[in-house]
C-alpha cells in the first residue's frame, strides 16, 4: 500500500488533488475539512474527473466535472485520447490508400468516412458525373445499412449506460445481421475500404440481393421491439425526458447537425438539401421530433432506422435491374483495377483478373501496375463535399497539389463539433444526466480525435 504511486494527494495550482484508489475515501473528507478552516468556499466544490477509462463515457472521453453535491456546475470535455494522426498519415499514402485510413476514423460509420472522402476526390478529379449508377446505388445501400447499424449501437450503448442492458443485447443482435450483410458484400465486418474514388471496389456477389431483402423483412419485425421496450417505459422516459436540452439557436451557434438538430424540429438533412450519390431519386422523409431533449433524439434515431430500411428496399430493387453494370468509372487511368475473389485458400486476387492482365491485355497490366504503385494524380485545388452521417454533417476538406498523394485532408467530423455541446447540456443538471446527454449526442471518439 505504501508504494502505491497513485494513492497520494498533491498540491496543484488550483488546490489540492486527491487520487483515491479504494479504502481511503476518508482522505478526501479530511482534506476538505482542513480546507474549510481557511477558505470555506474553495472546498465546497469538488472537481471530479470522469474517464478516460470509464464504462459510461462513450469511449475514451475525459469529463472534468465541477460538482456541488449532485449538481454539475461546470462540465468540460478532455479529448485527444484517441488521436491517431490519420490525417497526416494520409499525406504519405496514395489517394486510394487514403480510403483505408479514413475508414477507421469514425469506426461505427466507416462507409460515411469513405464516401465523403471519395466524393471530395471525385470532385477534384472532375468525374462526379461519370461514376456509374450501380456504384452510386451500392454506395447508398451500404451507407443506409451503416446508418442502421450505427443507430443500433447508439441505442444499445445508450441503454447500457443508463442500465437498460436488454437494449444492449438486442441492439447488438440486430447489428450482427447488418454486419453479416457487410461481410457478404465487402468481405469485412468493419473498416471496409470499399468505397473508392471512382466507384466501389467490387461488384455485388451473387445471392446478395436475396440476403438484403431477407434482412429488410426481418428488421421490420425486430425494430418494433425497441419501441415497445423503450418508448413508454417510465424509467426510460424519466431518465431521458428533459435531459440535455438544446434548442435550435443553440444548435446553430454550436454548429450541431444531425439527429440533435432534428430533435429541435428543424428538418435539416443533407440528403435532402444537398443531395449526393443520387439521394434525390429516393423516396424517404426527414424525421424530426420537437422536444429538443435526449428523448427526442432517441425517437429521431428510431424513426431514421425505419427510413433507412425504406431506402435499402428501394436500392435493392434498383440493383436487381442493374445486374452486370460496371461499378467503377470507365476511365482506366483512375478506376481501381484489381478484383478479389474467394478461392480454395481464402480470399485473394481474382484469377480472372490475373489472367486478363498477364495474358490478355498489356494496357491492363500497365494500368494495374501504375495505379497500385503510383496511383493516379489529382489536379490541384480543394474540395469539400459534406454528407449526412449518422451523427450529423461529415465532410472531408481535400486539398491536392497535383500529386499522387493528398496534400491535406481534414475531416469535419460531426462528433467533434457536437461534443462541444456537453457543457451547455450538462451544467446545472445532475451527474447522471451528463451521461444521458452525452449518449444522446452519440459521439464516437475515433471521429472526435481522428
Amino acid at each position, binding site marked *: 500500500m505504501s508504494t502505491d504511486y497513485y494513492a497520494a494527494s498533491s498540491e496543484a495550482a488550483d488546490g489540492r488533488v486527491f487520487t483515491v484508489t479504494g479504502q481511503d475515501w476518508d482522505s478526501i473528507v479530511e482534506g476538505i475539512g482542513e480546507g474549510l478552516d481557511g477558505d470555506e468556499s474553495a472546498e465546497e466544490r469538488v472537481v471530479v474527473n470522469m474517464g478516460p477509462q470509464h464504462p459510461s463515457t462513450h469511449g475514451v472521453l475525459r469529463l472534468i466535472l465541477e460538482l456541488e453535491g449532485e449538481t454539475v456546475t461546470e462540465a468540460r470535455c478532455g*479529448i*485527444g485520447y484517441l*488521436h491517431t*494522426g490519420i*490525417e*497526416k*498519415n494520409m499525406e*504519405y*499514402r496514395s489517394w486510394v490508400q487514403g480510403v483505408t485510413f479514413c475508414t477507421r476514423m469514425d469506426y461505427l460509420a466507416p462507409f460515411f468516412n469513405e464516401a465523403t472522402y471519395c466524393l471530395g476526390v471525385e*470532385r*477534384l478529379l*472532375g468525374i462526379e458525373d461519370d461514376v456509374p449508377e450501380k456504384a452510386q446505388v451500392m454506395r447508398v445501400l451500404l451507407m443506409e445499412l451503416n446508418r442502421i447499424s450505427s443507430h443500433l449501437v447508439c441505442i444499445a450503448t445508450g441503454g447500457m449506460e443508463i442500465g437498460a442492458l436488454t437494449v444492449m443485447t438486442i441492439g447488438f443482435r440486430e447489428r450482427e445481421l447488418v454486419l453479416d450483410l457487410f461481410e457478404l458484400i465487402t468481405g469485412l465486418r468493419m473498416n471496409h475500404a470499399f468505397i473508392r474514388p471512382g466507384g466501389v471496389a467490387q461488384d455485388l456477389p451473387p445471392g446478395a440481393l436475396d440476403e438484403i431483402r431477407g434482412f429488410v423483412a426481418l428488421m421490420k419485425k425486430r425494430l418494433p421491439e425497441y419501441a415497445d421496450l423503450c418508448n413508454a417505459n417510465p424509467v426510460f422516459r424519466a431518465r431521458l425526458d428533459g435531459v440535455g436540452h438544446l434548442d435550435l439557436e443553440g444548435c*446553430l*451557434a*454550436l*454548429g*450541431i*447537425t444531425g439527429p440533435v438538430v432534428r430533435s429541435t424540429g428543424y428538418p*435539416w438533412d443533407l440528403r435532402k*438539401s*444537398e443531395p449526393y450519390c443520387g439521394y434525390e431519386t429516393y423516396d424517404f422523409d426527414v424525421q424530426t421530433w420537437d422536444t429538443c431533449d435526449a428523448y427526442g433524439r432517441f425517437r429521431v434515431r428510431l424513426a431514421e432506422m425505419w427510413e433507412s430500411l425504406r431506402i435499402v428496399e428501394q436500392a435493392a430493387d434498383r440493383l436487381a435491374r442493374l445486374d452486370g453494370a460496371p461499378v467503377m468509372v470507365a476511365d482506366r487511368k483512375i478506376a481501381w483495377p484489381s478484383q478479389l475473389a474467394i478461392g480454395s485458400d481464402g480470399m485473394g486476387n481474382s484469377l480472372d483478373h490475373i489472367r486478363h492482365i498477364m495474358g490478355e491485355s498489356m494496357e491492363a497490366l500497365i494500368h494495374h501496375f501504375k495505379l497500385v*504503385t*503510383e*496511383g493516379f*494524380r489529382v*489536379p*490541384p*485545388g*480543394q*474540395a*469539400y463535399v*459534406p454528407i449526412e452521417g449518422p451523427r450529423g*454533417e461529415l*465532410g472531408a*476538406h481535400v*486539398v491536392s*497539389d*497535383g*500529386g*499522387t498523394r493528398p*496534400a*491535406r485532408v*481534414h475531416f*469535419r467530423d460531426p462528433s*467533434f*463539433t457536437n*461534443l*462541444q455541446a456537453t457543457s451547455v447540456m450538462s451544467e446545472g443538471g445532475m451527474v447522471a444526466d451528463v451521461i444521458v446527454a452525452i449518449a444522446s449526442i452519440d459521439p464516437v471518439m475515433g471521429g472526435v*480525435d*481522428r
Partner: protein
Amino acid sequence: MSEGKRDDRREEKRDPAGTPEVGKGPEQPAAEQAHENLPTPAGERTVRQVGVRRGMFGVRGTGDTSGYGGLTQSIAFPGDAQRPYGGWYDDVADALEVATRGAGLDVAAPRVVIHRGEITFHVRPDDLPVVARALRDDERLRFELCSGVSGVHYPDDAGAELHAVYHLLSMSHNRRIRLEVAVPDADPRIPSLVPVYPTCDWHERETYDMFGIRFEGHPALTRILMPDDWPGHPQRKDYPLGGIPVEYKGGSVPPPDQRRSYN
C-alpha cells in the same frame, strides 16, 4: 491591393532557379506546362503557381538513371475568378461588399477563386471578423452555420504558409462558401471567430494544436488533441511523420515518410 502582391509573387516564381533546359519545350517555358496537360476549363483563366515538383521517384543526384530526376512540374492552383462569376456567386459577392462597406472599416475586396463549383473568398486576416459577422448577419447572406476550421500548410508559398479555411453554410439559402485566410510562418496570428461562430472553439484549438496558428481572442487556446506539453505542431509539413522502422526477419522497412516513393 492584395491582387498586386499576388502578381509580384507569381513573377518571382515563374523562373525558379536552376530550371533545366530539358524542361523547356519548343514554345512553352517549363512553368506553362500545366498539370496533367489538361486544358484550362473556361472561367479559370489564370493559375497561381505555388511551388515546383522536381523528379519523380524521390531519388536525388546520381543513381537515378531513368532521367525522371530532371522532371520539373509546376504546382499550379486554380487562379482568381473574374466578374461576373455566374449563378448566385455574384449575389453573395455583392451583398458581402455592401455589408462590409457598411461596417465602415477598411475591408479589402477578397480574392475569389471558383473551382469545381465551389467558391472560395481569400480574406485578409485582419478583415476576417468583420467579414464573418457580415456573412452571418446580413439578410441576403445568412451563413448561420460554420462547419469548421481547417488548417493547411503550404511550405512553398513564401509569406503565406499557413492557411486557415472556414466552410460556411447558409441553411436559409442552402448555399456553401469557403473563406480562406493566409498568414506567414513568422507571425501566425489570426483573429478568432469564436465571438461570431461559437462552434469554432474546438476547431481553432485543433488548428492551433496541429499547425501553430494563434487565434487571438480565443477564450482558451490550448492543445486539444495532443498532450498538453507536446512540443511542436504535428500536421505541419516540416514535422516528421514520426514512425519507426518495422523489423522483419533479416531486414527492416523504414517508416512511410522516409521510404523512396513517387513524388
